[in-house]
């Protein structure tokens, strides 16, 4: 099983050639997913979600999850 990884907005433009999937066996937390997906260090204000829910980067992930990283929200 794998974990799908998405980047949005300015992060998507900044992270060159990220992996869109990482091996679930290699990661325990959201932070681990970031490290597997890209060589870039994680910027300070990055927001994270797992399966469409806001999460802290320290929270766990499971096989089959969709993990997303994005900058502060600016809608509305």
């Amino acid at each position, binding site marked *: 099983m794998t974990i799908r990884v*998405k980047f*949005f*907005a*300015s992060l998507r433009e900044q992270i060159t050639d990220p992996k869109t999937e990482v091996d679930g066996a290699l990661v325990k937390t959201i932070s681990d997913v970031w490290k597997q997906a890209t060589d870039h260090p994680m910027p300070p204000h990055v927001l994270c*979600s797992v399966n*469409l*829910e*806001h999460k802290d980067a320290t929270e766990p992930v499971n096989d089959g999850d969709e993990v*997303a990283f*994005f*900058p*502060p*929200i*600016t*809608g*509305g």
Partner: protein
Amino acid sequence: MPVLIKPESFDPASLQKAHEASMSAGDFGATASFTGTMRNFNEGDDVTGMMLEHYPGMTEKELEAVISDARSKWDIQDALIVHRVGDISPGEPIVLTVVWSAHRAAAFDACRFLMEALKSRAPFWKKETLKDGSHRWVEKNTPGYS
């Protein structure tokens, strides 16, 4: 459907009326409505266009959660959130939040809550096109309370 994501320009008044048509006139006494419109200036610069990116699936989920939070906090009859995505031009509406309730206090409070909550939770990002053709991501929202 209290949450709408619109890839094309929308008319806030028509959508508000259309939603209201499903309700029984006389049942509510107060309607508070907010429309956010794209300005042609931001942080001192002329802005000629904007692209609104979102996270399909999560966006709808968060907007529905925002409405359900409002329903649990205030005695409201109904609520509507409409949000634009994609390429948009100055003068076009970006967002519409509407709350219907029996009394005005709940409508005012909940309508403002919808805006503040969606701005902090719903995954949308703005990228502006400036007069000289350059682009920039908007980095943060303006404060909601003065």
